[in-house]
């Protein structure tokens, strides 16, 4: 399902960051786990095409999205993935309905407030946010925002769903409920997903395969475990619940 072999050097004024990652799995529910600052979000962005690795390759659902050797680098819009940002990144100038319909039109103008697209209406109903369709993001609660962002990503029928800390912004009670919702939704759609988290509870629930990213030495570094190398962070095979090494 997912094959990652990427290297990326990032230099900012304060620090030098090296991301090195090798991972391969056929599991359809993958959790990328690790402390903040280890490069989890960067990994997700590389899969989505928002960050270009220095070298390596990325294969998602049998599709080669990036391969520095072969000169392949699909643009984000060609990758057809759904991406749930940590703070949901809803467009503040658009209503819930317009947000969900955003990716359905290629035109240079946003869908009109009054426009009704059956696909959007279906997702509004499916996620129980039909009454909020004409509200703006700032009028929504955390859970409603997440449902809107999920609908916006899923309405395009993406090949895979990428989620960046989807529950971090929610309070504990709601977190458990949204976990159930996402779990049920994923099973119903049978859509492959990659979920980034620092919460072990997410691994138990969604980690058919787990990629653990650790911060090594001064420079954070990541390796595929596969049993080799003293600095191996982790990877897990199919069906493995928690990562073996932490």
């Amino acid at each position, binding site marked *: 399902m997912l094959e990652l072999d990427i290297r990326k050097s990032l230099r900012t004024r304060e620090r030098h960051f090296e991301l090195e990652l090798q991972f391969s799995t056929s599991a359809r529910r993958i959790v990328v786990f690790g402390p903040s600052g280890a490069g989890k979000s960067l990994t997700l962005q590389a899969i989505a095409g928002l960050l270009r690795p220095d070298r390596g390759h990325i294969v998602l659902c049998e599709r080669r999205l990036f391969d520095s050797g072969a000169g392949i680098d699909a643009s984000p819009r060609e990758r057809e993935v759904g991406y749930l940002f940590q703070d949901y990144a809803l*467009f503040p100038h658009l209503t819930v309905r317009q947000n969900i319909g955003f990716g359905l039109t290629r035109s240079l103008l946003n869908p009109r407030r009054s426009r009704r697209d059956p696909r959007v209406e279906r997702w509004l109903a499916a996620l129980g946010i039909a009454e909020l369709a004409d509200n703006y993001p700032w009028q929504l609660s955390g859970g409603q925002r997440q449902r809107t962002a999920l609908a916006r990503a899923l309405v395009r029928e993406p090949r895979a769903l990428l989620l960046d800390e989807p529950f971090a912004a929610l309070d504990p009670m709601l977190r458990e409920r949204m976990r159930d919702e996402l779990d049920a939704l994923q099973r119903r759609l049978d859509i492959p997903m990659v979920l980034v988290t620092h919460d072990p509870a997410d691994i138990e629930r969604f980690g058919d395969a787990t990629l653990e990213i650790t911060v090594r030495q001064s420079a954070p570094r990541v390796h595929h475990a596969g049993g080799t190398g003293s600095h191996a962070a982790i990877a897990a095979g199919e069906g493995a619940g928690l990562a073996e090494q932490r």
Partner: protein
Amino acid sequence: MEPAWVALGLSLKVAGWACLLNLILGVGTGFALARFRFPGRDLLDAMLTLPMVLPPTVLGYYLLVLIGRRGPIGAWLYEHFGIHLVFTLTGAIIAATIVSFPLVFKSARAAFETVEPQLEKAARVLGVSETAVFFRVSLPMAWRGILAGLLLAFARALGEFGATLMVAGSIQGQTQTLSIAVYEAVQAGQDRTANLLVAIVSITCVVVLVTVGRLSPARTAH
């Protein structure tokens, strides 16, 4: 009394054109400088802001050197198209555009810099083109700041005096704008005309400033 209204018409025409040109030039450069990092970016920003701080007479002199009959741009235009810019309304429009450019460009750059990069990324992942990201996310989120800058530029262009006088002169009914007409009226001791002109300019500027003030805090209301 009629010359006053003619002068007002000319001023509105000059300021209107200056705003229209700056809508394209200022928003374009503002976006480019907000989004792209390249060597010399800070220097370019400083150069583009220069018209705001330079004395208008210095600016007028530069313009004369550039677009005058013997200047590099002026000579070329005259040779190929027979266009003459000095002492024309077009010259006045060019002067007003350059003088008010930094107000649009600065506001546009600041407005684009406040747009969350995350939102533009979200739009890209949702499959829309870069052009669509600009028109559907970046521009709608920055337009209040840009509009405020445009209004200030309009007021600035309306009041432009020094550079305009040097480039376009003061030909009544042709290049004599409102602010130049005020000067001429005072010089000629026509107090009634001067009073009327001054009142027109002042009221216009107050209206513009109140509008700008209403545009800015509304951002935080959301």
